[in-house]
């Protein structure tokens, strides 16, 4: 032992000596990485009056105090149907004139009972053979553009906001829209497959007959029910749901890739009430600005929360080729989901910080808010609310016996499960700890990152109104959120803590060393040989040459001497 420590002592002493006296190896100073361009917190360009509580086309629309609120004209169209609104309101939307028709008050209770919903299948962040970017674009976080497929309400005109822009029109987005109908409505869901692959709709948990009255399959499962809907074709699903609840719909063609690609949404059957015009679409999910009569009996507000996870390798496939056959091969025969890992986590189609622009739950004290949650992840979801304990009222759309309902702060959902929560903002130390900006997020750690960069993922806030500006900016009291609004941050180029500790950057990024240790010098000569056998042979030849040089060293000396003297003589 003693001997050993002696060796260590002498070893380190000799190391010190060898470093020399004058040259102390000082580590490099911190080099500040410039932030670069940061987006403003709110750049939605939404007119301020869109956020206000208002009545349009006779439809009461609740306030939405977020940066990027839904267009009230869309809400009016979704409540009344495109067949019951003025041309001006229809023109203020991007909807096709036949996107949603509501007719026929069959039970005479003051609301329409025959609903025709037309859906299209759209690709966003898709490939272009004409330029290197993607189109139409939809960023889940600054500069993050995975390719998606979504159902959309039937739209008209361009798929981008203008010819000069590649940005998707606001109805083309993740997630597929929440669909709301009333219990007992006759609902036709017309899927017009505008995409280049086959698709279908399976109504998960929604009461629907296996076959429709015309003898066609109605379950959306190619193997058992009805051939998939081919590109350019359409199919009508006919349902009359008898039970209310928070349900689910998704494509059932190659579902292990088509569901993660985005062809999935919430399907909500509202309880039957008189004069109950429900908001048939909630595009982008989030706040329901026109809650149903039954919801308003118990709650002041209602939010749809759709969680999804994204494997970036899968979502890159549609961007890597144009030929549908190549994309199909890559997705169906080469991609292996059993080897896959999720990289992005989104709430209502966005990751933090973009979630703050549209997915705030804005509350006031002593409110009861209904949250409908869908776990669209490929794995479990463990949703946690800071500052609140909410009550689990419905599982997969079925009400839990009120006396057995559980109040807690982590809500667990397996994939495809739905959960209804009652969020009570009474400051009693149990349901709420009082006003503030309270995060809510999936507590599976990777889910609050974006490709492993924190804090990203599906984080959003329960924001008390006194903490939110008129334009939806939360009055946060912590760090500057600017870095989160740069592309650089998500490209992993900004040291997270560089400006925090002090002004010399003690937690910044060390400057790169100025001298380059060689290593590059040797590379040039080794072009010819490849593989280790080649190397072995080269070495062998060199060795032989060395041996012969050694054998004939006297002659070599003589030759070199002669050459040297000749050279001198010439000079």
């Amino acid at each position, binding site marked *: 032992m003693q001997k050993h420590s002696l060796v260590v002592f002498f070893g380190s002493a000799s190391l010190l000596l060898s470093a020399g006296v004058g040259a102390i190896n000082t580590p490099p100073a911190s080099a500040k990485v410039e932030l670069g361009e940061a987006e403003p917190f709110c750049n939605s360009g939404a007119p301020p009056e869109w956020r206000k509580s208002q009545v349009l086309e006779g439809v009461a629309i609740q306030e939405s105090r977020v940066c990027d609120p839904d267009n009230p004209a869309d809400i009016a169209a979704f409540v009344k149907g495109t067949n019951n609104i003025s*041309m001006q309101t229809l023109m203020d939307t991007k909807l096709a004139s036949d996107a949603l028709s509501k007719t026929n008050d*069959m039970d005479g209770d003051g609301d329409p009972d025959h609903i025709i919903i037309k859906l299209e299948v759209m690709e966003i962040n898709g490939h272009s053979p*004409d330029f290197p970017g993607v189109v139409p674009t939809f960023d889940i976080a600054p500069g993050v553009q995975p390719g998606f497929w979504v159902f959309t309400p039937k739209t008209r005109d361009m798929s981008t906001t203008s010819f000069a822009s590649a940005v998707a029109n606001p109805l083309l987005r993740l997630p597929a829209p929440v669909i709301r109908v009333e219990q007992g409505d006759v609902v036709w869901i017309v899927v017009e*497959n*505008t995409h*280049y692959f086959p698709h279908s709709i399976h109504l998960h948990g929604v009461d629907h007959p296996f076959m429709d009255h015309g003898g066609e399959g109605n379950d959306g499962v190619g193997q058992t029910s009805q051939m998939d809907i081919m590109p*350019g074709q359409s199919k009508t699903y006919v349902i009359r749901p008898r039970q209310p609840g928070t349900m689910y719909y998704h494509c059932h063609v190659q579902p292990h890739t088509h569901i993660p690609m985005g062809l999935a949404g919430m399907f909500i059957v509202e309880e039957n009430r008189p004069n109950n015009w429900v908001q048939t679409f909630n595009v982008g999910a989030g706040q329901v600005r026109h809650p149903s009569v039954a919801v308003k009996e118990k709650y002041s507000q209602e939010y749809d929360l759709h969680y999804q996870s994204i494997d970036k390798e899968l979502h890159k496939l549609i961007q890597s080729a144009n*030929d549908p*056959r190549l994309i199909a091969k890559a997705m169906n025969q080469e991609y292996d989901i059993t080897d896959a890992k999720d990289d992005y986590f989104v709430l209502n189609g966005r990751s933090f910080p973009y979630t703050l622009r549209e997915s705030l739950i804005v509350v006031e004290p002593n409110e009861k808010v209904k949250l409908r949650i869908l776990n669209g992840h490929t794995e479990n979801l463990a949703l946690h609310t800071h500052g609140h304990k909410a009550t689990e009222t419905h599982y997969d759309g079925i009400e839990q016996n009120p006396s057995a309902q559980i109040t807690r702060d982590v809500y667990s959902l397996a994939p495809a499960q739905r959960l209804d929560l009652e969020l009570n903002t009474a400051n009693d130390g149990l349901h709420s700890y009082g006003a503030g900006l309270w995060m809510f997020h999936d507590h599976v750690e990777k889910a609050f990152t974006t490709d492993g960069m924190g804090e990203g993922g599906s984080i959003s806030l329960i924001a008390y109104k006194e903490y939110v500006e008129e334009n939806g900016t939360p009055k946060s009291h912590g760090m500057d959120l600017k870095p989160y609004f740069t592309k650089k941050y998500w490209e992993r180029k900004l040291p997270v803590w560089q400006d925090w500790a002090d002004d010399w950057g003690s937690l910044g990024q060390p400057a790169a060393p100025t001298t380059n240790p060689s290593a590059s010098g040797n590379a040039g000569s080794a072009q010819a040989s490849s593989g280790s056998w080649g190397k072995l042979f080269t*070495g062998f030849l060199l060795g032989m040459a060395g041996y012969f040089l050694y054998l004939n060293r006297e002659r070599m000396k003589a030759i070199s001497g002669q050459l040297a003297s000749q050279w001198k003589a010439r000079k």
Partner: protein
Amino acid sequence: MANLVYLLALSFFLASSVSGAEQKIVEHNMLMDHGDGHLMDMEGGMVMGQNKDKLPGGCDKISEDAQITVKAGHKYARKFPGTMFAFDQQEWRVKPCTRLTVHFINEDNVRHQWMMHGLPKYIYDKGMFHLEVTGPAKISGTLILPKEDKTYLVHCDIAQHMEKGMKGQLIVGNGSGTFPSIPGLTDLAIPDDYGQAQPAATAPVDTQPADSFLTGSLIIGLVLGIFGAPFVIRIARERFKGMTFNDFLAYVSGLFTELVNAIMKFFTWLYQLVTSRNRYLPKK
């Protein structure tokens, strides 16, 4: 009562779906004019940029009245491998100042568009002329083309429809070049990678980075060379002791012939191994 209406609704639906299967083309000719050349009906038919009488600058009069009929749908993609939707034609030529009526027939059961960009904005809102209809249906619209020689992009702007083949160009006069990625006309600006011929595609790719010259195997070779060379030379000297140079050459060529024979034998054996299966197959 409710059930009766339900059944009625269903039977209406069935009737309409049957007619859809027969591919009866519905004519959308009851459009409502919303001004500025924007016409629309409640079944999703739409015309934008309709202009029957406003002459673009430089046109003294309408040079001629022309009509084209364009069909659109999945089936027109058949001619063009790697596409999914297409128009039946990819290029149209007209004279400057032509008054052109486009009859657009969509034979699919989804929306398609015949959308033209780059027109003068003082006549055409957003510089667009646009026909849109959900098939199977027909819609028609009219515009007057400017005087300048120009090539106009024509496409369906539904996400991925242009990319997957529904793209063409309208050439006024001599035109002004061509657009890329038009099926059968121009190449993709960014071509797809179809890989190598089959065997090469499955060959393992050497992904080892180019590393430094001094690797372990090179050093082993070096050692072998330096210390092995004396032995090799000694053995060779013993073997060829007393031989002339010609004898040595003969010996080496003999070795070479043996080697070639051995290789030939190996390949003959391989060939027989592969072809011999035929012997066991029943003859037809």
